[in-house]
């Protein structure tokens, strides 16, 4: 639990970097997961509106640190919210016991690694970080 002010500084620095980057985002799942996953499915997964993949099977959704460039892209392009709206949305779920937010990973590399080793996992990374150990379900 860092102080609000240091978080604020980090977030604004990240925001400045992100506004220059504007990279393409890939949504990735485990190679064993052959579900046909649409953009709507990804939205539902990250808004806790579904707990199983379209083809069945439990979901372990992975998130990235707030303010990280891939996350800002993901939230705005796919979830179609900004990070504050996403936070307000999740605050309702967390404090009503209706959902537990996706696990936060520290980097693209960590997401790729976690998705590669967990058949239930889904994550998002910068397109450049994708390896042949994961399956890309969509680029945005």
């Amino acid at each position, binding site marked *: 639990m860092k102080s609000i002010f240091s978080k604020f500084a980090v977030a604004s620095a990240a925001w400045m970097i992100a506004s220059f980057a504007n990279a393409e985002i890939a949504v990735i799942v485990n190679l064993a997961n052959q579900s046909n996953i649409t953009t709507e499915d990804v939205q539902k997964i990250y808004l806790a509106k579904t*707990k199983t993949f379209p083809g069945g099977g439990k979901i372990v959704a992975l998130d990235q640190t707030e*303010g990280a460039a891939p996350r800002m892209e993901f939230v705005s392009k796919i979830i179609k919210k900004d990070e504050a709206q996403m936070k307000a949305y999740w605050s309702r779920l967390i*404090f009503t016991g209706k959902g537990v937010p996706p696990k936060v990973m520290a980097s693209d590399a960590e997401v790729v690694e976690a998705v590669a080793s967990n058949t239930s996992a889904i994550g998002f990374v910068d397109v450049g970080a994708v390896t042949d150990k994961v399956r890309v379900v969509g680029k945005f």
Partner: protein
Amino acid sequence: MNVKLATRFGLSALALAITPAHAVDLRFDGFATFVVGQMLDDDELNHDPQGNLMTFRGFDDQINFQSNNVFAIQARADLGEGLSATAQIMAKGVDDYDAKFSWAYLSYELTPEWTISAGQMRIPYFYYSESLDVGYSYPFIRPPFNTYDIGGFDNISGLKAEWQTDVGNWVSRVTMLAGRTDTTLKISQLPDPVKAQVSRMGLLAWSMNYDAFTVRGIYARANLSLGVSDYLDAIGFDRISNEVDSTLTGIGLPALGLNFSNDARHGAYYDNDAAEFYGIAFNYDPGPYFVTIESTVLDLQNGFMQNPGTGTYLNAGVRLGKITPYFTIERAESDYNEKGYRRLMAEVNHAGLQAQYGSLVGDLIYSGVGAGLKQVFVSSLKEENAYNIGVRYDFHPSAAFKLEYMTAKNHNYDLSPQAIAASVDVIF
């Protein structure tokens, strides 16, 4: 009850801590709200029956830093295999920051669609019920006051089943809840807090969500008991009888000795009496703007308080980056328990009074008793329009600042209180 719960939770937390075999995934979340506000003019306030100046949404003519403040920590232990334990401890400024367990429950995910929970939890009467204290989760400083006033019966001990499923492109969520609660309530008409009990509560809520649109309906019923009979006898029925008698003897006439039967008095009590609640809410939030409409009815069917009470509001706002201007219009109405009043009046023998005291004095006594009895019932009669306009500024990913002007038009007392408030809401 809170101490007992705390001990119980303490023991189970201890049990968890000394069980090394399982990796328990423990998660802490918290939220806090700091509000400062002031009324523009305290001439627009009512006095309670004890003669104290009441407040408007917790504000008076002094700058008030405390009464709306909230600080809470929630702990959730994921025990694996779908089992989890959640506890929330909250301290409110209005209770002098006396920290209490607002909820503590076990949840078990039977299937991805079905979850059952047992313990103490929030009763989901309203659209914003379950995040009622999390200021960060909604646009306004507090949800619409009259609609969201359920008299303190926020939490319940019981069993809850939730069923979340896809219906075509819609996400359906059904909540079923059964339980009871014993609590102590402060009722503005009475000098001291009274014991209150809600038992045999059953609740069914159904929400349907499609993309940015959500509709939610709810029905609940319960048996309500309030420890008000002694007060009502003392400040209501017996007082009326005594006043009539002292007036009569004061002018040299014989005392009447008016006495109401228990059956008729019961019309003003709450003694295991049925209460019903219905509500419907619509929310459309595509992102750049949002609209919420909610309407609720509380029908107490018996007793001296509002009967039934309705509340409806419309809230809308526009998101301009980090700035969100919003407004709310609210209308609340409640009738009085005319049936209970008439039952008591039926025991006042109008013709007998005229025969005993002559028609002039008999009529005076009859209308005097009627006015006195009516006062017992109409004290919480309400017809109020409320408005607010404000702006939310998301100055940080975990914190929002809100500035709001709020006013109301109370038609029963012809009062128009106004206040300005600012809040900082954080989650962590």
